[in-house]
């Protein structure tokens, strides 16, 4: 809360150690670098808001059974359908008498599962296409980048929609469909990062020591690509969430009774005029979470830019 340690006068023990201009070990230097990045990040109010929202999402997903009643989220009580907001039901109830607050909380698990699975698929695929493309160049580069361009030639939601329509509805298929459309930017990014580094002296040194191309890619280039890939991923999260919610809204994502936010908005549409909360509250959840990821990503990018500049 005290803001920048530079203003607090003499920094106390561990801070002094972290900010030491002449670190004694590689570990200290690395920790110090991270700490300085954190200090720069912490000064950015919007980015901190983003971090708090994302942390809240993760906590809500982990502690969903404590924060909300599982029974209320899934059990149908038809006598209590479409109840207005009240102490018992802070966000009202839906057309089957289920508590919307509880469903939104449990819905965070669905959202987090989707973004988690998509990132696990997309980053390795993007790296697998982009690294060889940038490192070897020539016809490998031409072929791989042509494939990437083809996938970039589609608007993302439309392509995901076509894939999901063909694979059939369901959360796994939504993940596959989104991943199939989300990897190209990572391939481009990994390629660009590789090209700027492939002629560096430390790569040459590794080559002279007889390291194989695969080894150089994994031990030398991947670690250098990762920071920008992670920032890109954070910025992409909101796009992934919006695409997933869009697919859910169109009936192609998670299927009922799973509390997916987009699908909840879709069912609430028919009650929009008289029971506004059924559609708008899950939509607000989508909005807040995707805003959180955008703010966080922007903040991370600013920190990274100021470091490289």
């Amino acid at each position, binding site marked *: 809360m005290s803001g920048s340690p530079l203003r607090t006068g003499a920094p106390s023990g561990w801070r002094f150690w972290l900010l030491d201009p002449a670190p004694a070990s590689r570990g200290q230097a690395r920790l110090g670098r991270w700490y300085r990045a954190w200090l720069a990040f912490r000064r950015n109010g919007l980015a901190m808001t983003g971090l708090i929202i994302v942390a809240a999402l993760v906590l809500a997903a982990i502690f969903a059974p404590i924060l909300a009643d599982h029974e209320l989220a899934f059990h149908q009580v038809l006598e209590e359908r479409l109840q207005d907001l009240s102490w018992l039901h802070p966000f009202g109830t839906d057309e089957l008498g289920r508590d919307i607050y509880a469903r939104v909380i449990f819905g965070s698990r669905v959202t987090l599962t989707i973004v988690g699975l998509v990132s696990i698929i997309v980053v390795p695929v993007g790296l697998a296409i982009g690294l060889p493309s940038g490192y070897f160049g020539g016809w490998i580069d031409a072929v791989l980048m042509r494939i990437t361009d083809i996938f970039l030639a589609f608007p993302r939601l439309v392509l995901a929609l*076509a894939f999901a329509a063909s694979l059939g509805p369901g959360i796994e298929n939504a993940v596959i469909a989104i991943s199939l459309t989300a990897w190209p930017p990572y391939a481009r990014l990994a390629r660009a990062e590789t090209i700027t580094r492939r002629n560096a002296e430390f790569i040459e040194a590794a080559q002279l020591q007889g390291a194989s191309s695969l080894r150089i890619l994994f031990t030398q280039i991947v670690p250098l690509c990762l920071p920008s890939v992670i920032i890109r991923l954070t910025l992409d999260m909101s796009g992934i969430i919006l695409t997933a919610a869009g697919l859910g*809204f169109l009936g192609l994502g998670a299927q009922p009774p799973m509390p997916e936010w987009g699908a909840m908005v879709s069912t609430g549409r028919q009650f929009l005029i008289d029971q506004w909360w059924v559609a708008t509250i899950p939509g607000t959840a989508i909005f807040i979470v995707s*805003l959180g990821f955008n703010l966080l990503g922007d903040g991370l990018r600013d920190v990274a830019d100021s470091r490289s500049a």
Partner: protein
Amino acid sequence: MSATTAESTIEAPSGWARRIAGPVRHVLGLAGSVALTFLGLTCVTFVIGRVIPIDPVTAIVGEKASRTVYDRVFKELYLDRPIYEQYWLYLRKMLHGDFGNSLLTAHPVLSDLLHFFPATIELALPALVIGVCLGIPLGVLAATNRGRWPDQIVRFGSLLGYSIPVFWLGLVGLLILYAKLGWVDGPGRIDDAFDDIVPTVTGLITVDSLIAGEYETFWNAVSHLILPSSILGYYSLAYVARMTRSFMLSQLRQEYVLATLAKGLSPFRVVWIHALGNIWVQLVTVIALTFGGLLEGAVLTETVFAWPGLGLFMKNSLFVADLNAVVGGTMLIGVIYIVLNMLSDVVYTMVDPRARTRK
């Protein structure tokens, strides 16, 4: 004297040829890459339509089809042939504009797509106009006031545009402006009372009604149009403003800005004439991409507003699991996207001499 004219007459064609050769080669190369991209696009839609579904026939005719229909479609899809032959025949059909028939309307998919497309254009064009006419000035304003409150507002506003689900904003807009306040008309393109009054000329109701002189119909159509296209417009505004801001910032860092200012040119002139003149070529690409994004947003917006365009057609086809229509719509949007990208590339080379000489 005569020697110099002779020289110049000899040189003229070669100079002319040299000047034209670069762009021609570029356009040819571009055409090649567009053809390749198109080929890849058909590969992707082939995989979506024929390879992924376990039973492509059922995916097209639905589960209730009779045995004879099933067998006929099985033959029509060439499913008895090897896969490369299937692709080749598929490609030939695509090039003839044959996407099969739609389950919903029983018409050929292509004629359906063309029937619904004008409604989407009517929605997307005003949105694009909003995005460009407001997005560019706001982006410039943000860049010239970097770090101060106009910049903060524009940045946050465009960040919101990246974060708000378009279908949610549509529903909230309907709830407040239509249901509660009654300022605009609700879902649909026009009130039933005005349906089919004006003869179709362009397919855009607003334009057709003006041509026919039916002003009441025109105002009704505008009142239906204004909310969905403003919402879509906000999204393109967010994107255009963000890109303009970052292009502008990179221009303002250049030394020529400092030099022209030092020479006493007004800051207004430096920003709006010199700097903007340098970035508008880049903005053309952004605008082309924006239009692609609008087509994407149209799928969700049309669903929310029951707007009878391409997006609603695709969504309704999804509902009856009609893969032909979905793939056809995807293909159409993909082709538009490719053509727009190509056009913006051509504009780029025509306007920017550096792009001509590069490579």
